[in-house]
């Protein structure tokens, strides 16, 4: 019996990036002097050698069909110099060593429907997860939410009119693959999982599921004579951690899986230290295909931030200056008891002082 010969993988790892760099970037690797931004969507970097490079940044849909990628490659070949890179937020960057190429490149990108922007104090593209398109545990979609919101925020992507940069993320479950952001939209389940007891014994490794629960609310049980799991619904925090290792514990619910809005997350060390984002709104419906209620809250927070923050204040810097009471007052968001932390370490989120703004 002869088995077909399988190809052994070449365990090559991460390829050398130098082979893909734009020549000006390669020539000046580690030797840059400064940059400025001639207009929104364009960066101009000057090397210590005196060489210059202009970068045009365009938004993409991230989930790209090969026709879109080839179109972008055609633009890169004809109007740029055949080299591109992607930012962490799925924007595509085109580098040119000749300033004269910038305007025609922008015109061509815009003609083909790719917005130019996302630089400096703009609202950049949303950190984007997988959602219904591909994830195995999503409470909502990602691509649709991002498309809907970026349609609404197009003007803020193509202009630099915010006090500082604004970074958004969306996440389709509470694991929050989208990560910390100035404004984050995250699924928040509001009901315990619904358990299909017929399937648990066959599908789930029960001790692993019990161990996964952050509040020890799950225990093994015999249900209808079958080994299964049960949830102490008084203890359950509806986080959905049990669902990935045990799909018969369905947490997603068309009505009761809601969306929450978090603000003030930041990774940069600039000014105040990196910050976790804080929940400020919840209970928003998972209203596909356009999620208008979510867009309304996000746009309102952005409007207040834009009016009230000082230059260079990120969302977190701004809130630190004005204080949380005024944040809720200015945004007209209801402050409810659910926004007071009671998880471990919660006391550090309480006001242990008489520092109060009146």
């Amino acid at each position, binding site marked *: 019996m002869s088995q077909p010969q399988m190809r052994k993988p070449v365990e090559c790892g991460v390829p050398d990036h130098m*082979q893909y760099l734009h020549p000006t970037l390669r020539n000046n690797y580690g030797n840059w002097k400064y940059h400025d931004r001639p207009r929104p969507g364009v960066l101009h970097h000057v090397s210590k050698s005196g060489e210059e490079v202009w970068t045009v940044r365009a938004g993409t849909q991230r989930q790209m069909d090969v026709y879109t990628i080839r179109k972008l490659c055609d633009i890169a070949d004809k109007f740029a110099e055949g080299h591109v890179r992607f930012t962490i937020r799925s924007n595509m960057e085109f580098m040119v060593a000749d300033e004269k190429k910038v305007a025609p490149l922008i015109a061509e990108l815009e003609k083909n429907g790719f917005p130019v922007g996302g630089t400096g104090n703009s609202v950049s593209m949303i950190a984007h997860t997988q959602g219904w398109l*591909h994830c195995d545990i999503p409470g909502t979609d990602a691509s649709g939410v991002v498309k809907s919101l970026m349609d609404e925020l197009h003007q803020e992507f193509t202009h630099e009119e915010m006090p500082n940069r604004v970074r958004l993320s969306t996440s389709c479950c509470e694991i929050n693959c989208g990560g910390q952001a100035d404004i984050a939209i995250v699924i928040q389940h509001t009901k315990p999982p619904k358990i299909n007891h017929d399937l648990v014994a066959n599908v789930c490794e029960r001790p692993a599921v019990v161990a996964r629960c952050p509040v020890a609310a799950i225990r093994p049980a015999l249900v209808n004579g079958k080994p299964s799991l049960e949830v102490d619904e008084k203890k359950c925090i509806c986080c959905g951690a049990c669902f990935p290792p045990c799909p018969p514990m369905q947490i997603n619910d068309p009505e009761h899986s809601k969306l929450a809005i978090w603000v003030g997350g930041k990774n940069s060390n600039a000014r105040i230290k990196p910050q976790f984002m804080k929940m400020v709104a919840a209970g928003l419906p998972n209203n596909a295909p356009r999620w208008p209620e979510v867009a309304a809250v996000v746009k309102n927070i952005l409007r207040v931030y834009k009016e009230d923050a000082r*230059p260079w204040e990120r969302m977190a810097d701004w809130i630190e200056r004005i204080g949380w009471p005024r944040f809720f007052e200015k945004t007209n968001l209801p402050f409810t008891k659910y926004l007071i932390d009671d998880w471990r370490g919660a006391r550090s989120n309480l006001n242990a002082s008489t520092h109060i703004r009146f």
Partner: protein
Amino acid sequence: MAKKPHDTPNLDQLESGPWPSFVTGLKRLAKDKDYVVDLLGHLEHSYQTRKGYWKGGTVGVFGYGGGVIPRFTEIKDADEKPVFKDAAEFHTLRIMPPAGMHYNTDILRKFCDIWEKHGSGLIAFHGQSGDIMMQGCTTENVQKAFDEINELGFDLGGAGPAVRTSMACVGHARCEQSCYDEGKGLRTIVNSFLDDIHRPALPYKFKFKFSGCPNDCMNSIQRSDMAIIGTWRDNIQTDEALAKKWFAKHGMNELVNDVVGMCPTRAIQLKEIKDLRKGENISSVAVNDSQALEIDNKDCVRCMHCINVMTGALAPGNDRGATILVGGKRTLKIGDLMGTVVVPFMKLKTDEDYEKLLDLAKRTVDFFAENALEHERTGEMIERIGLVNFLEGIEVDVDPSMISAPRTNPYVRMDGWDEEVAKVNAKKAAA
């Protein structure tokens, strides 16, 4: 020509508006591929019922234990047959990108040709861990697609309890704030962990991320188990021509309000040039004929703010390297954790320096592999065992830069105090 499309009234609404539409892209693919016709039907079903319908499984390539994300449909009819049969399998190949995510059009076109032939034709640049995600492939075609991608010099990324795909910022390639060669750091480390990437056998995932300066464009402090963030030890560098150019454009109000006033440690002062202090820790630069900025670098925490505002006029120092933080992660299971300092400064210049970084990474992953519980991230392990036990495990000495404040409670057994003081003093004497 592909089969007749399904009605997609929800998805159709995502074709209007100024932002590029993934639905329009999928519909273009669906003209030629029954696979994508059924994918659109599958996604529309999710939009109508507001639920996801993919489940995992086991699909891989020969020789590797991970890197493919298997997806099988759960939308079945009464006979347990897939309703959208042509999209019943929709696996993703995670491909590790070059550091900084640089490409030429030639390699992108080759990816497109491979994925048009073997997959759905849908590619995401990039996933949240940094992978090029080739989305949508049948079980049968996974190996064929991988073989061709692998021949181009690209390799599968991590999935499951493994070292994961990594990311580096644009850094050295196009950023004046870059404090080490991020791409070199990434390749030195990641390409030394290929066995742990391709054959998942750790307690849980382990991520490295590489940011060239404290602006941390890779979000490494909260998105990675080990964050390598560029920084410098010596004085901020200044350039008078660029400082004066900045001042001429922005003026005194912006200088005071946006630069001096926003320094988190009040390390910058505005002074008359004649009053400037001299000293080995002082940086100063004139902004006009009579006034200058003075920075006391001993007070500076390298936050980057003033450098961000006055790029080129102010710049990171010359004695460059990285601060290394360990333990960042998101919510599950104990709540969010930022990475915390494990090495305040590691010089990153020579090959030997990068080897030291690799050595630290190996000690850290080894300790994690031996001591973490199943499904426990590094940050959670440190929370459980305490930072000091972790540091002893990876053979790193304690340092006051690792804390925001010393302990605020007396609940600790301290009968080893004298011995520790003796060790610290001996070390000081030897230095």
